């Protein structure tokens, strides 16, 4: 498995929006962690049933908040998955991408919990 990037996320946008409101900042971090975990669970469920369209929809929904959190590596993977035509999906490639995404986002959650 490819090594994870050194810097998995960038919270500068969130800090800017929080504008010194630490309670808000921590609330948003916590919210992201929860949403992230729920989404990854859903994705796994859909993957088991080979429901690739549903996976694309979930990832499409996650993209904006992942963008806010500056998780560039994840954004790139989601873009690749979204751009894959459903009738052209190579399950093995798809599976590798999802696994990579899963790893990145889980590690993000681990590191975010330390904040």
């Amino acid at each position, binding site marked *: 498995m490819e090594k994870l990037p050194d810097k998995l996320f960038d919270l500068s946008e969130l800090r800017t929006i929080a504008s010194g409101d630490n309670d808000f900042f921590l609330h948003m971090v916590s919210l992201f962690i929860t949403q992230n975990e729920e989404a990854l669970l859903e994705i796994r469920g859909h993957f088991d049933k080979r429901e690739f369209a549903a996976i694309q929809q979930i990832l499409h929904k996650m993209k*904006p908040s992942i963008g*806010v959190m500056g998780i560039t590596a994840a954004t790139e993977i989601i873009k690749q998955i979204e751009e894959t035509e459903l009738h052209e999906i190579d399950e093995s490639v798809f599976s590798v991408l999802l696994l990579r995404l899963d790893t990145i986002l889980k590690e993000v959650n681990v590191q975010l919990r330390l904040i």
Partner: protein
Amino acid sequence: MSTWEKFSPWSSIPKPESMSSFSIFIVEDDKFYGEYLKHYLSSNPDYSIQHFLTGKELIANLHRKPDVITLDYSLPDMNGALVLKKIRQYCPDTQVVIVSGQKDISTALDLLKDGAYDYIVKEQDSRTRLWNVILRIRENRALKNQVEQLQEEVGRKYDFEKAIIGNSQAIRTIYSLIEKASKTNINVSITGETGTGKELVAKAIHYNSSRRKKPFVAVNMSAIPRDLLESELFGYEKGAFTGADTRKTGKFEEATEGTLFLDEIGDMNIAIQAKLLRVIQERELVRIGGKDTIPLDLRLIVATHRDLKEEVSNGTFRQDLYYRLLGLPVHLPPLRERTNDILILAKHFAEAFCKENNLHMVVFSSEASEKLLRYPYPGNIRELKAIIDLAVVMSNGKVLSQEDIIFSQSSKPSEFLNAGEMTLDEYNRLIIKSYLDKYMDDIPLVAKKLGIGKSTLYRMKQNDQI
């Protein structure tokens, strides 16, 4: 630094203090993203923001009529297009900004056609773009409110009892006619000498009618060259004639849903009269060089200083057009027939002039009042206003003396003839009055100039005939 100054991309521009509280609903099923937008927009203390996660929650709250709704196109319970439709139905004044992850142009275009104000894709700079769009909506709303306020003010200005000053029976009759005219769409024909306030009456009717928020278009028929009158009134298509480089809408179309005021209608040549008659009868027109008929919805008010019945007898005005235009006739009497109103008007003009020019209020000496009452005012109210404005300027104190009242130096016999038909006796008195004014009431001199006896003049003065 305030949060407004910190976050506003336009922080160099002063915050619009005149804008009141602004309500925004955010509809976003991604809780994180919704709260992110909410917190960002909340940095403006004038914004009151609420976040909804579903279309149904939003619809249940539409009765609160927010100013703006930011709407995610992909909601879990309802299609964004359907939500937009509901918003347009229940809150037509609410602006909707679609904030979506989809970059599909055709979807964006469809939503804009269905009434969305803007479409923003959720990308890196989307929060700034949303901020700017909301600011623009807010400014447009403030401008719209200002326009409505100004329209209301214009309406108040043309509150006819304040705009048309007077206490005479003639004026009271005019108030009554204006009120009747403004309640319906009937054509109005206004007659009266120059300077009697025909346009003022036309505006009073318009701004007190249901059409007051729509255009008031005035055309002075005598000021437009004959060759251009038809194109000015009815418009033309591109290429209709040499020089017609673009399409031009005419005054009739400009006045759509409003009022068209045709001043000096008696000066219209007979050829255009035929076309005008057809347009008024059919309530539609075809631009010069055009093929399409354009339906008309306007009220027509015409005015003239001429006697149109006489013009009809002379063959210079069409009888059928005359009767079409007649509608509700309003005749404005010349000022010399409303002597009761001369001093009321004079006082009004003096007060208005002093207020406009930050001067102390003035009052009229009894001699000045007398002098004002004696003059025939061939130029009617317009002339009286000019006399009073000049008198205020020329006065040395707070009291206007008779020396401050200066009538036109170029009073010629022709001006009296233009003042309308009078008896020979009335003409004589007018001439004598003008000479007395010119020569500062020097009776012996005036008697000599006019070739009449001094005793005649003294007797006329004693009997209040001059």
